[in-house]
């Protein structure tokens, strides 16, 4: 695997934006599919040891992606992304919100706007993922609640231990 595929991560508080840039060792149509088809998203969207599970997805303007992040203990955090603009194989934008299993958006919790841009780089593809928050401080709460355990265990390499720990 090409080690040049490093993550470019920047925070812009003024615009309440976090930008994640990364090149992928595949041509654009493939990478586009990986971001826009639920059966592929389910394979990578959740950080280990969490798993993403799509309940429904309609990738069209106005359509939604209703999915759960499922933890190692089976705990579920539901989210609903609504696609607002799609320029095939170039860019899509959407609104990501916390929801419940029925797809009802939780307005108490922070929402974020996605702007995902795809640029061909020879045989590779550069993806720029801009996440715009209403309030960056709210994001702290986001991290506190859902992913912390999953993340910390991933960080400490516990994900490899988990199968053997389970009875």
């Amino acid at each position, binding site marked *: 695997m090409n080690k040049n595929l490093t*993550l470019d*991560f920047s925070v812009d508080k003024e615009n309440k934006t976090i930008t994640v840039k990364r090149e992928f060792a595949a041509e654009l149509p493939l990478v586009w599919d990986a971001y826009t088809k639920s059966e592929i998203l389910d394979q990578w969207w959740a950080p280990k040891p969490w798993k993403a599970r799509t309940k429904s997805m309609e990738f069209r303007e106005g359509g939604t992606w209703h999915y759960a992040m499922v933890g190692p203990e089976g705990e579920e955090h539901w989210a609903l992304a609504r696609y607002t603009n799609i320029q095939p194989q170039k860019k899509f934008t959407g609104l990501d919100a916390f929801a419940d299993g029925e797809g009802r958006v939780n307005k108490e919790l922070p929402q974020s706007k996605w702007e995902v841009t795809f640029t061909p780089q020879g045989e590779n593809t550069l993806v720029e993922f801009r996440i715009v928050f209403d309030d960056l401080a709210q994001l702290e709460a986001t991290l506190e609640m859902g992913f912390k355990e999953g993340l910390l265990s991933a960080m400490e390499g516990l994900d490899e231990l988990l199968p053997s720990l389970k009875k």
Partner: protein
Amino acid sequence: MRRDVFQAIADPRRRAIILLIASQAMTPSAIAEHFDISRQAVSKHLRILSECGLVKQEQDGREIYYELEMTKMKQIDKWLDQFRKIWESRFSQLDEVLLTMKNKQK
């Protein structure tokens, strides 16, 4: 006005000031020498950094020295590191998924 640490690091000059005083405490005029902005502008940045709890002041005779509040800086690092880790984890999984997809195409 409520301030948070992300506001503090949003401005490129404030980031530069943070870097500058990371190694040693400095007076506002010593800091100002490193920038093409007024002493007042530097003071304003320092005030915001103080309000965010990122720098602390030490009085030494007539001079006020500014230095970094390291625990606060570590909080930001930790928080951003978590966020970054999510994406690193995601993307290394995506690398594998793409590799599988590519092999299937052949």
